[in-house]
């Protein structure tokens, strides 16, 4: 290439770039003065259904509030918390921040969030206690849930009918059914146990229903829950791959007919309906007849990062409008969640009876951060490592949880 041509190309490249390059740079935050208001929002729903649900909500919100515009940013699920923390450190959080509900406690403890009572009057009695506890820190409300979800058992009706089985009610039933339904490429039971919070989440219904707790992970009740899982995998009634499956993979296994029973949540309902599988939903089986299932409470919450009173008030408009029963129902329908606001929840379940079991369980559901507060992530990580060790066979359930207990005690002292 001749020297002239080379330099010419470089010059073009450079000049062609200067235009877009200098566009779009702004300092963080800031709403314009005057009537028009811009709200910045951040969430982790880059994919559907969350993405479409949020887009629809924002569209209707902006239509109803012509002077407010919402600028939405999405980040991958695994990066939201770290991103939010980085921004919190430099006081550049968006006006509205979505969080996975177990993260709220830790975040509120930093003082980065604004308590809602300074500009809102919320009738707490109209909300389910469990979900409301997820957004309560030191007695104050720091956000409101978009909606909640939990876990239940979804089973393949045809496989059950073919094998002449009835849906399981107790752990013994579940083990027997799983055994009977395992053949060929089909496993009786499928759950999710990857190296993330998803494992703890999937484990908690069994742990808590049996009467165990994360704080006392080496109690006999806690160990009994782990033994249930370990038995499933060791006997081959659940695939070893559970160690690398996310709940989305579990759903795929079920849809493809590779699992007769799965543990999953209401957000899978749209996929389940499309799959063509004749499925049924039952509550989490209990160790002994008469006990009630205690599922963990999932779902996301919207919070207001602390800033100027005016901005906080504007941000509140966004959340308040979402909590209007009609809007709440619409967005929960899109997510396939259940509202925490009782009248809306009841209405939604009437319209969609498939949510029945999930909604019922919500009443006895428990916030994951209960008693552990901002130490929950640390403890969760210790527990999921221990569960994996037992499932992989590198430790017995007793040893795995005894070691975990030591680590938890140590971690809580720091």
């Amino acid at each position, binding site marked *: 290439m001749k020297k002239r041509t080379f330099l010419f190309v470089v010059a073009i490249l450079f000049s062609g770039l200067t235009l877009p390059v200098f566009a779009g740079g702004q300092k963080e935050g800031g709403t314009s003065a005057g009537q028009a208001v811009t709200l910045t929002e951040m969430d982790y729903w880059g994919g559907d259904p969350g993405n479409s649900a949020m887009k629809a909500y924002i569209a209707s919100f902006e239509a109803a509030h012509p002077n407010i515009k919402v600028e939405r940013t999405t980040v991958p699920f695994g990066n939201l918390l770290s991103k939010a923390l980085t921004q919190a*450190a430099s006081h550049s959080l968006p006006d509205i921040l979505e969080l996975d509900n177990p993260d709220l406690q830790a975040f509120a403890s930093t003082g980065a969030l604004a308590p809602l009572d300074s500009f809102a009057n919320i009738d707490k009695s109209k909300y389910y206690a469990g979900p409301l506890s997820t957004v309560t820190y030191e007695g104050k409300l720091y956000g409101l849930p978009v909606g909640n979800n939990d876990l239940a058992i979804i089973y393949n009706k045809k496989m059950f009918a073919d094998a002449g089985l009835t849906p399981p009610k107790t752990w013994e039933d579940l083990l027997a059914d799983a055994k009977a339904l395992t053949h060929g490429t089909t496993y009786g039971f499928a759950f999710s146990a990857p*190296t993330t919070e998803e494992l703890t989440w999937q484990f908690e219904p069994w742990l808590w229903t049996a009467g165990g707790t994360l704080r006392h992970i080496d109690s006999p009740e806690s160990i009994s829950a782990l033994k249930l899982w370990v038995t499933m995998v060791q006997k081959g009634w659940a695939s*070893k*791959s559970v160690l690398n499956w996310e709940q989305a993979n579990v759903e795929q296994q079920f849809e493809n007919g590779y699992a007769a029973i799965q543990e999953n949540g209401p957000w899978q309902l749209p996929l389940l309906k499309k799959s063509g599988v004749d499925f049924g939903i039952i509550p989490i089986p209990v160790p002994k007849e008469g006990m009630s299932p205690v599922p963990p409470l999932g779902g996301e919450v919207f919070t207001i990062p602390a800033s100027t009173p005016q901005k906080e008030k504007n941000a509140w408009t966004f959340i308040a409008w979402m909590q209007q029963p009609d809007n709440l129902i619409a967005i929960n329908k899109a997510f396939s969640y259940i509202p925490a606001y009782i009248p809306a929840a009841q209405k939604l379940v009437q319209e969609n009876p498939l949510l029945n079991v999930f909604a019922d369980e919500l009443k006895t559901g428990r916030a994951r951060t209960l008693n552990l507060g901002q130490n929950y992530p640390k403890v969760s990580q210790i527990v*999921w490592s221990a569960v994996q060790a037992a499932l992989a066979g590198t430790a017995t359930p007793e040893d795995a949880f005894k070691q975990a207990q030591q680590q938890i005690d140590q971690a809580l002292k720091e």
Partner: protein
Amino acid sequence: MSSFHSRRPRSLRSAHRYRLLFLLPILVDIVIVFVYPLYTNITMSFEKYGIAAFVSGRAPFVGLKNYIDVFSNPLMGKTVVNTILFTVGSIALQFILGMLLALFFKRRFAGSQLLRTLLLIPWLLPLIVSATTFRWMFDHTNGIINQFLQNLHLISQPLGWLITPNLALLSVIVTNIWIGIPFNMVLLYGGLVSIPEEYYEAASIDGANGVQSFWYITIPSLREIITIVLMLGLIYTLKVFDVIRVLTGGGPANSTQILSTWSYALSFTDLSFGQGAAVGNVLIAVSLIFSMIYLRVAKITTGPAR
């Protein structure tokens, strides 16, 4: 070579100071990209830096407590072992396979240049892409690797590549090797083709066979290149992070947790930033030691080459 300075006319000595301007942008860059982050990380490792401190910027000074906690954590031993296995395994095999490929391609044949080019592709794919693809291939139930092995009757049951603790580490190493082979191959190939052919001719006249030629001619001639390939590979392997995060997240049961992934987990899962920073500093210190060795071997010169 006489010093350029002494031959310069007097009036131009003042020009020297403005020559530093050539370096100014890069000095700024070094501050941004090296000095400042290093400073932050070091100070953070001496503070009790929880989530509240992260947000407020104020954290109590706790001396060596983070380092003590991290070193007395039962995970530390396992993580260090994993790191050593991962690093040595990756580098050894990347190097050996790279060398074999380089030797293979040293023989000119039609199409060899094209094939060599194609082999560079793994090195150029975004890590997220490579790691995700390997994650599928290693899947226990529907991974193509298990399928191949079973079809070839090499295994009777599918192997849990990413879900069995020992195998998981191996799988992660294999993926890392795949990513690193091209870099090794190209460097070694470049060295191989510059060894004078006469050496080999003289040796074969003396009756040396292939293995002896390799051992007594090829290796010594490549001594400098080999050392550098190994050093750079080491330093870049210590930084590996994305690959493991995507493949196994550090599990199952911490069996693929290495220092870099553990540092991230401490900071962003446990929200103990001080401890995460402490582990990060251990990593940097190790890199520093090896980079000193590298500087020795590469014989960094400080003036115009001659």
